[in-house]
């Protein structure tokens, strides 16, 4: 009931709100607006666009765009992604790659072979003939491949051998300069870094016969040494 009363009161108050009238010059202002809007209406959109001041630069821009489109030839080659193009093959690069691809062990073996040839040509012959030791299949294959390698990679091996010779000669010069008493120390090499395989000397696996020969030679040397020492001792005692 109370709400209805307040609602009624509110409605009555809203109805009795003072009426706001238009100003006296409403019509004159209205006609001024209508006339000004008509003037602006007369100039249509197309008339605005097709004025010589706007057509000329637009035509120039269009013509230049057409010329650029037909003159500047955008070929698909230029548009190709450079990342997708395969690089051109370089011959010198291939040669270098081939030298790097040579396996180190095989290179060593080939150098050893060469050294054997230089130092003991008769042993190489015996090895080739298979007189010294009967070879297993894998060993014989290795030798064959080594031979092929030697034939194919002669220039590379020569290079490596030359380098080795140079280093050897340098070493010998150094030792000479030091009076042959002191050996030159290796370049900052720790004991852990040095392994037998990395050392630059000839490695040979001796056969049993050769081992016997070596033993006999050692015995000879020791007997000669002991004899000499005995002689020296007897001489000293006599004196």
């Amino acid at each position, binding site marked *: 009931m109370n709400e209805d009363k*307040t609602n009624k009161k*509110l409605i009555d*108050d809203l109805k009795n*709100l*003072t009426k*706001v009238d238009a100003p006296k010059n409403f*019509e004159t*202002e209205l006609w001024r607006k*209508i006339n000004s809007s*008509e003037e602006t209406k007369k100039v249509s959109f197309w008339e605005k666009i097709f004025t010589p001041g706007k057509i000329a630069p637009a035509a120039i821009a269009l013509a230049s765009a057409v010329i650029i489109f037909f003159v500047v030839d955008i070929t698909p080659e230029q548009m190709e992604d450079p990342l997708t193009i395969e690089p051109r093959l370089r011959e010198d690069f291939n040669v270098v790659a081939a030298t790097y691809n040579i396996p180190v062990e095989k290179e060593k073996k080939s150098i050893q072979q060469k050294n054997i040839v230089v130092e003991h040509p008769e042993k190489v012959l015996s090895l080739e003939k298979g007189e010294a030791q009967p070879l297993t299949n894998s060993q014989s294959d290795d030798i064959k491949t080594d031979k092929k390698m030697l034939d194919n990679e002669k220039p590379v091996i020569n290079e490596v051998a030359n380098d080795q010779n140079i280093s050897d000669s340098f070493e010998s010069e150094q030792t000479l300069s030091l009076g042959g008493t002191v050996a030159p120390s290796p370049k900052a090499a720790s004991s852990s870094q040095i392994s037998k395989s990395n050392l630059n000397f000839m490695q040979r696996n001796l056969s049993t016969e050769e081992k016997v020969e070596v033993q006999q030679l050692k015995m000879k040397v020791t007997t000669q040494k002991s004899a000499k020492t005995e002689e020296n001792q007897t001489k000293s005692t006599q004196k």
Partner: protein
Amino acid sequence: MDRNLNELTDEELILEFQKSGNEKAFEILVLRFKNPLTNYVYRFLGDYDACVDVVQDAFVKVYRYKDNYSSLAKFSTWIYTIAGNLARTEYQRRRKRNFFSISKFGEEDKSFDIPDNSTRPDVLADASMKNEIIQKALLKVRDSYREAVILRDVQEMSYEEIAEIMQIEVGTVKSRINRGRAELQKYLKDIYFD
């Protein structure tokens, strides 16, 4: 001739203006609708100068687009729809402008109640304090509710007419009027519950 035109209904006058382009018919329509439209737009916007501009713009639209009027609808509904749309646009534009002009100087998240200082002096002289308070409360009500309340309680229009002007269902009109009144009562509780 003038006497005859004055006797014509609103619809007949606009049809006359459409057919013959008789500006006298248009002038009579302006004379008939300028005050009710000014009152309606003023209650909605709360600014007299802006309201006069909006009403004039509404008449300019009627003048320019007279051919868009179809004889099926009432002229009053048509012109009120035009004026209502213009008033809504103007209100939103002003609200944005006021918000940004205040937020420049104040805290960013805080909003302010803008005091209405644009009330005409002659209106103020005639109107009681109550009228002023009601007008301020009206401006606080949500746009869609306020429009419905003004059309119903101030302009005294029927639900059907309001539904046509606001282009919504009659049921929606009724609910909006009720909600608008409830909101108005909430803002005017100092007057009605004391």
